[in-house]
C-alpha cells in the first residue's frame, strides 16, 4: 500500500454529493480518490468505499431501492463482506439499508418536510473505524439535507443495535442532550448513524464531507473521515500519520 488511502466514490445516476466526497478525501485530506461508475465491476483496488448522497435513480420506487441493483453494488457487497470499509452518506445510507448491509429503513421525515440545516450529533461509540478521532460524548456539528431520514427498525433490532454499541451518532441539542427537539426527522431513538455487526460498514444521514474545508469554519466532518484514514492506514500496517492540513 502506498502512503495514501485510496477512496472509491460510487457514482449512481442522480448522485450529487460525489464530487464533495472526492474533494473532501482527495483535495482536503490529501488521500487518493477515484470515482466508481455504477456500471463498473472493478473496484480499482480501493481501501474504502463511499456511497455518496443524492437522489440515485430519482428516488424512484423507494430511496436507494434501484441503486442497490447496480452492477457495482455486487462488488461493494462482496468488499464489505470481506471486511472492507464502506460508508453510506444520506442517499448512500439508504442504499446500504436496501442492500441489506445495514438493518432497518429510512422513512419519510415525520414533519413531511425536507430538512436542510446544520444539526448537532453526539458520538455514542468512539471505538470504531469511523469515530476513533472522537471521544465518546463529543458533539459534532454536521449538516443534514434530506426528506427521508427518519430511521426505523423493529424493537428487537433496536435492542441489538443498542446492546452492541452499533449506534454511532445520535441527534442532540447544543448541550449534547438527546431530546425530541434536537431530532430533525423523527428518527427512532434520535439515530443519526449506525454500523453493522462486524464494524466495517457505516451509514449516516448527516454529511461529514460537507464540513472539511477550513474556509467554511467548521471541519467537524474531518474527524470522521480522518478516523477512516487512520483505520485503513493501520490496517495496512502503516504508522498513523496526520494529513498535511491537520498538522497546521
Amino acid at each position: 500500500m502506498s502512503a495514501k488511502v485510496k477512496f472509491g466514490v460510487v457514482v449512481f445516476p442522480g448522485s450529487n454529493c460525489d464530487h464533495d466526497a472526492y474533494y473532501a478525501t482527495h483535495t482536503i485530506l490529501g488521500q487518493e480518490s477515484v470515482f466508481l461508475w455504477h456500471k463498473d465491476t472493478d473496484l480499482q483496488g480501493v481501501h474504502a468505499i463511499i456511497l455518496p448522497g443524492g437522489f440515485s435513480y430519482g428516488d424512484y420506487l423507494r430511496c436507494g431501492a434501484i441503486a442497490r441493483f447496480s452492477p457495482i453494488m455486487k462488488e461493494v457487497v462482496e468488499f464489505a463482506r470481506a471486511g472492507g470499509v464502506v460508508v453510506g452518506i444520506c442517499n448512500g445510507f439508504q442504499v446500504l439499508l436496501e442492500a441489506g448491509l445495514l438493518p432497518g429503513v429510512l422513512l419519510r421525515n415525520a414533519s413531511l418536510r425536507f430538512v436542510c440545516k446544520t444539526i448537532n450529533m453526539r458520538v455514542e461509540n468512539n471505538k470504531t473505524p469511523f469515530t476513533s478521532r472522537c471521544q465518546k460524548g463529543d458533539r459534532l456539528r454536521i449538516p443534514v439535507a434530506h426528506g427521508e431520514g427518519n430511521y426505523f427498525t423493529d424493537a428487537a433490532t433496536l435492542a441489538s443495535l443498542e446492546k452492541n454499541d452499533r449506534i454511532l451518532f445520535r441527534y442532540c441539542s447544543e448541550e449534547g442532550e438527546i431530546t425530541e427537539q434536537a431530532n430533525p426527522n423523527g428518527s427512532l431513538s434520535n439515530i443519526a448513524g449506525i454500523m453493522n455487526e462486524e464494524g466495517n460498514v457505516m451509514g449516516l444521514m448527516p454529511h461529514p464531507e460537507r464540513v472539511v474545508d477550513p474556509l467554511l469554519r467548521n471541519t467537524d466532518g474531518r474527524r470522521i473521515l480522518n478516523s477512516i484514514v487512520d483505520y485503513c492506514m493501520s490496517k495496512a500496517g502503516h504508522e498513523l500519520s496526520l494529513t498535511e492540513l491537520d498538522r497546521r
Partner: protein
Amino acid sequence: MFISKIRVTLRKSILDPQGKAVEHAITSMGFNDVEDVRMGKYIELKVNGKTEEEVRKTTEEVCGRLLANPVMEDYHFEIDKCP
C-alpha cells in the same frame, strides 16, 4: 399474457405522516366521518407466462425483492388475463 395488479402498503405498525396530512385535508374539507388515511402504491406488470401459477411465482419474487421493502411494507396482488 397476464397482468399482475400489485398494491404496496405501509405496514400497520409504521406511522404514515403523508396519510395523516391527507387525512387532515379531508377533515378540513368537512368530511368528518373519514379517518385513518393510509397512502400506498399501485403497480401493474404485464407478465408472459403459460399458467397463472407461473405468473404468481414471478410476481411474488419481484415484489419480495424489489417492489416492497418487508421492513416497512406489505404487498398484495391479483392476476388477470390480459384482455
